[in-house]
Structures are given as structure tokens and as C-alpha cells.
């Protein structure tokens, strides 16, 4: 008994801490922002699929190259610009969550501060040297030579090769795109926080007198906080430049890279996070309260990296095998806890009428990975026998799928697909059409069904016993519920 209450105390504490994480404004903003720009990544994924998988099937040669510009153009505006867009969306979501009225000003501050922290000189890869007949008109007839052909005339020391040139007046796609995402998160949130704080100070408000229209006064009121905020970030950029670095590089190498590495140092970090996340859902609170904060941003960055890699025709490196798609396509089939298996078991083997009713209600949304009806209706919440496979099955599937990817038996995920994509289709899309991944997903469902089955039996036996024991008490409960609904419908009518 004492042990039971200790366990209960732990679960209560766990739910409380998770709720606090779920309510933390910066973390909530991060989740909201990623949810807002998700369609952009989905589009990028589709464009990459079409131009890298479909087009080569029907086109060849120059026609293929020309057609693939379509996919490359979409990549440029989505994957290669994701960090800038995220910086703006973060500013907006933060303003809304802070109930700060001037949300659009936060968008401006978020984007601007992020770009301010970018390196002013980038190293560009060397292509061809372009000559025009007139220096002022770059579109005039031009000739281009491979830089290699005259690299000798650049007076390079012996033993060195020309690999890139310093360029100013340019943004590197690595900073504006996938690699800059972590920087965008930190900088935009810092900037918006500072901006809103400064905006609340009365001393910084410009008093223009009585006759000035309120809208004019408002525009002046955000001006000084905006100037101050961006000036601070400019100062930061200057200091870091003097030290020979920049914030984006520091964040990418000091924070993002180690976190991506942690997620890919075997499946363990991801398994630990999703163990807690799925356990949380067993207590009735949505799993993304934990996973959406601790795992999803990094895992999403990894799949965005992969989309960009795949779009450029390169193989995905092994340190990117663990990513968001392993979770969404292969570990949470039918929703958190992989409950599609639970539903299929119920149809095939269950004798409980009420379980079957819930399964009927839940199967269609379940195919699209929406499973609140199962979690609350079956129920899984606070139902110990079912909580065990609900937590265990996704962990096993994460480990197995990651293992199979590393062993080369299924292709790594290279496309982000909507999390509502039904099984088999989602595996095929995520791996850019690897049929083995589709087969693996079917095997996963069968395996998950086998694991769930004994726990379903135990759960049903426990429910029957409880009903027999509670026969006396249940009468009172029935009266109570009847009373409640009838009172409600009388009022409603």
C-alpha cells in the first residue's frame, strides 16, 4: 500500500512539473511557432519528393535539370529560409502568448535581431569567375571561366588550393536555413522578450500631447523600445565580430550540434524523452507537453537538414538517422502509444462490448494518428495494465527502426510528412519511396498487437472484477450520472 501511494505521489509530482513546462511561455511559444510553420516544411518535403523521385522517373538530361528548378526554387524559399521565417513567427507567437497588443512589431524585432547577429562576411564556395563587357551592366554579354583555370595567378602559397572566397553583401543559406534554426529560436525569443519589457516602461513612451491621434502616439511608443532592442543586439554583434566570431556560429556549434549529436548517439536520449512523454499521456496530459519541448525542435531540425541534403542529391549522414519522422511514422502509429495496435486487437480478440464500441468510434481518426478517443474512452488513462504497453511499444519501435536504419535495411527518413498521414503511406513518403519501410511498418503493427494483447486481457479481467465487486456501489453511481444528464438536458431544452 505504502509503495502504491509513493508511486502515486511520484506521478502527481511528474504531472505537476510537466504542466509547469507546458505553461512556460518561451517553451509554449516555441511549440506554437513550429506548429505554425509546419505546412511550409510539408510543402518542402513534397517538392523534394517530386523533383528528386518523381521527375527522374519521367525525365532525363536537360529537361530534367530544367524541371528540377521548380523543386530547387521551393527549397530556396522554405528550407533555405526557414530560420528567418521562424524568427518572425516566434516574435508573433510570443506577443500573442504575452498578450502584447502590437504583435506585428514583435515580428519585425524578431527577424531584424536575428539578421543583425549574422556574420557580415561569409565564405562563398568558388564557382566560375564571370566577366562582363561593361562593369556597370552585369547583364551585358558575359563570359565565365572556371576559377581553377587561373587560380595559379592568385599567388597562392605552395600546397594550398582555392576552396572559397570571402564575400560581403550576401547571406549564407546555412544561416538563413536549417543551420540557423537554433539561433533564430534563441535570438528572436530574447529580442521579443527585451522589446516587450522595454515597451512596458512608461519612461520610454513619447508624450506628444493631447491633440495627437492615438495611432500616431502608438507608433512612436514602440519606436524607442525597438531602437534600443536592436541597438543592443547590434552591439553584441560588434563585440563578437571583434572577437572573431558571431552568435550564429557559436549557437550552431556550441548548442545545436551537441544536441543533434545527443539525439543521434544511439536512440537512448529520444527513448528516455518519449518514455516520459507517453507516460504523461497516461495521466491525461498531452505528450507534446514534454516531447514538443525537449525533442521535437531538435528532431525537426534534423529532418529539415535531411530534406536539404536529399534535395541536393547527397546521401544522408548517419548522424542524422534519428529524426522527427522516426517518431511520427514509425513509433507513434495510430497516435501516441501506438494505439492502432490496441484497436486492431480489440476488434479481433476482445470480448468486452464497451471496448469494442470505443474501438469503432476510434478506428477512423486512429488511422490518421488521432487517438484521444482511445486514450480517454477506452480508457488508457490511469489504467495500469494498458499504460505499460502504451509506454513500452513506442520505445521498442524507436530502437528497432533506428537500428534497422543504421543496418541499412530501411532507407533513412528524408522527407517530413504530416503527422496525420496514415501508416504505410507515411513510411513510403518519409523514406522517399523505400518499399521495405512500408513492409517494416506492417511488421511493426503486428508486433505491437502481440505486445498489447496480454495487457488487454489483464485490463479486461480487472474491469470485470471491478464491476462484480462494485455491483452494490454502481447503483448509486448510475443514479448520479442519470441525474446529471437529465438535469442538463432539461436546462438545455
Amino acid at each position, binding site marked *: 500500500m505504502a509503495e502504491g501511494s509513493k508511486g502515486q505521489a511520484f506521478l502527481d509530482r511528474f504531472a505537476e512539473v510537466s504542466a509547469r513546462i507546458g*505553461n512556460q511561455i518561451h517553451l*509554449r511559444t516555441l511549440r506554437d511557432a513550429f506548429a505554425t510553420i509546419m505546412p511550409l516544411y510539408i510543402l518542402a518535403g513534397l517538392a523534394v519528393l517530386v523533383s528528386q523521385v518523381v521527375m527522374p522517373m519521367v525525365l532525363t538530361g536537360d529537361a530534367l535539370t530544367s524541371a528540377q528548378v521548380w523543386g530547387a526554387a521551393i527549397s530556396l524559399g522554405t528550407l533555405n529560409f526557414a530560420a528567418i521565417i521562424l524568427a518572425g513567427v516566434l516574435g508573433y507567437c510570443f506577443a500573442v502568448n504575452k498578450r502584447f497588443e502590437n504583435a506585428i512589431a514583435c515580428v519585425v524585432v524578431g527577424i531584424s535581431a536575428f539578421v543583425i547577429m549574422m556574420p557580415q562576411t561569409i565564405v562563398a564556395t568558388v564557382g566560375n569567375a564571370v566577366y562582363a563587357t561593361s562593369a556597370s551592366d552585369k547583364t551585358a554579354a558575359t563570359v565565365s571561366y572556371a576559377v581553377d583555370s587561373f587560380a595559379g595567378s592568385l599567388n597562392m602559397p605552395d600546397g594550398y588550393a582555392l576552396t572559397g572566397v570571402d564575400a560581403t553583401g550576401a547571406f549564407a543559406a546555412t544561416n538563413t536555413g536549417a543551420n540557423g534554426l537554433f539561433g533564430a529560436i534563441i535570438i528572436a525569443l530574447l529580442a521579443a522578450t527585451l522589446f516587450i519589457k522595454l515597451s512596458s516602461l512608461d519612461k520610454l513612451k513619447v508624450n506628444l500631447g493631447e491633440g495627437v491621434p492615438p495611432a500616431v502616439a502608438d507608433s512612436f511608443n514602440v519606436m524607442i523600445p525597438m531602437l534600443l532592442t536592436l541597438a543592443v543586439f547590434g552591439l553584441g554583434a560588434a563585440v563578437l565580430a571583434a572577437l572573431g566570431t558571431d552568435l550564429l556560429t557559436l549557437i550552431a556549434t556550441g548548442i545545436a550540434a551537441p544536441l543533434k549529436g545527443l539525439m543521434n548517439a544511439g536512440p537512448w536520449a529520444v527513448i528516455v524523452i518519449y518514455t516520459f512523454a507517453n507516460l504523461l499521456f497516461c495521466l491525461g496530459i498531452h505528450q507534446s507537453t514534454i516531447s514538443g519541448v525537449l525533442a521535437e525542435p531538435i528532431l525537426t531540425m534534423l529532418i529539415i537538414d535531411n530534406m536539404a541534403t536529399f534535395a541536393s542529391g547527397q546521401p544522408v549522414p548517419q548522424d542524422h538517422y534519428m529524426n522527427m519522422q522516426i517518431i511520427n511514422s514509425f513509433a507513434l502509429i495510430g497516435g501516441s502509444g501506438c494505439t492502432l495496435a490496441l484497436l486492431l486487437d480489440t476488434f479481433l480478440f476482445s470480448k468486452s462490448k464497451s471496448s469494442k464500441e470505443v474501438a469503432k468510434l476510434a478506428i477512423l481518426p486512429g488511422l490518421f494518428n488521432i487517438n484521444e478517443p482511445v486514450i*480517454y474512452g477506452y480508457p488508457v488513462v490511469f489504467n495500469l495494465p494498458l499504460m505499460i504497453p502504451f509506454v513500452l511499444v513506442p520505445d521498442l519501435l524507436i530502437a528497432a527502426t533506428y537500428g534497422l536504419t543504421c543496418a541499412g535495411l530501411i532507407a533513412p527518413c528524408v522527407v517530413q510528412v504530416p503527422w496525420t498521414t496514415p501508416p504505410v503511406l507515411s513510411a513510403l513518403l518519409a523514406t522517399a519511396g523505400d518499399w521495405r519501410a512500408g513492409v517494416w511498418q506492417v511488421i511493426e503493427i503486428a508486433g505491437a498487437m502481440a505486445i498489447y494483447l496480454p495487457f488487454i486481457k489483464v485490463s479486461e479481467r480487472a474491469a470485470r472484477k471491478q464491476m462484480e465487486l462494485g455491483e452494490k456501489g454502481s447503483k448509486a453511481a448510475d443514479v448520479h450520472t442519470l441525474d446529471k444528464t437529465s438535469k442538463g438536458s432539461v436546462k438545455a431544452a
Partner: protein
Amino acid sequence: MNILLACNAGMSTSLLVQKMRQEAEAQGLDATIEAKPLNKALESVADFDILMLGPQISYAKAEAEQFADGKPVLVIPMSDYGRMNAKGIIAEAVAALEA
């Protein structure tokens, strides 16, 4: 009567919203019922009379109440939510609005 439902991504409440609309029509209630993800719901709560949260985001109740400006904010009970008990949930909304 304008009822706003909110959940994590606006997916599972969109299941419920259809059933609630049918139920409201069957009861002859003049009700507008919509479902949104939590962050969108917080933005538009001013246009509704009551905000009902899915149990999976029960932790957001206190936060939602700040946005709701005195309008009732309810957490839908887990069993009603799981079984998509539209009748019971509408009854709760009506009771809260008349309280």
C-alpha cells in the same frame, strides 16, 4: 450561445465539434460551436461565450482564464471526451453559462 473548443492541435476537438453541432441542432439550440488549437483559441476567445478545453491540456486552464476575461473556462471530463459524449458536454456548457 457560442462555444469554443480547444485542444493541442485542434484535431481531436474537431471530431467532437461535429457531434456537438449535430446534437445542438437535434435539441433545437441556437449554437455556434468551433474547435481550434489552443494558441489560436486564446486569440479568438473574445468572440465566444465559453471556452472548453480538452482534458489533455487541462494544465492550460489558469492561462486560458486570463485570456477569457471572466468568461467561463471548463475542462471537459476525460470520459466524456473519450466517448465523444456531445450531449453531456453541451449540457455542461449550458449549465456553466446559466450559473
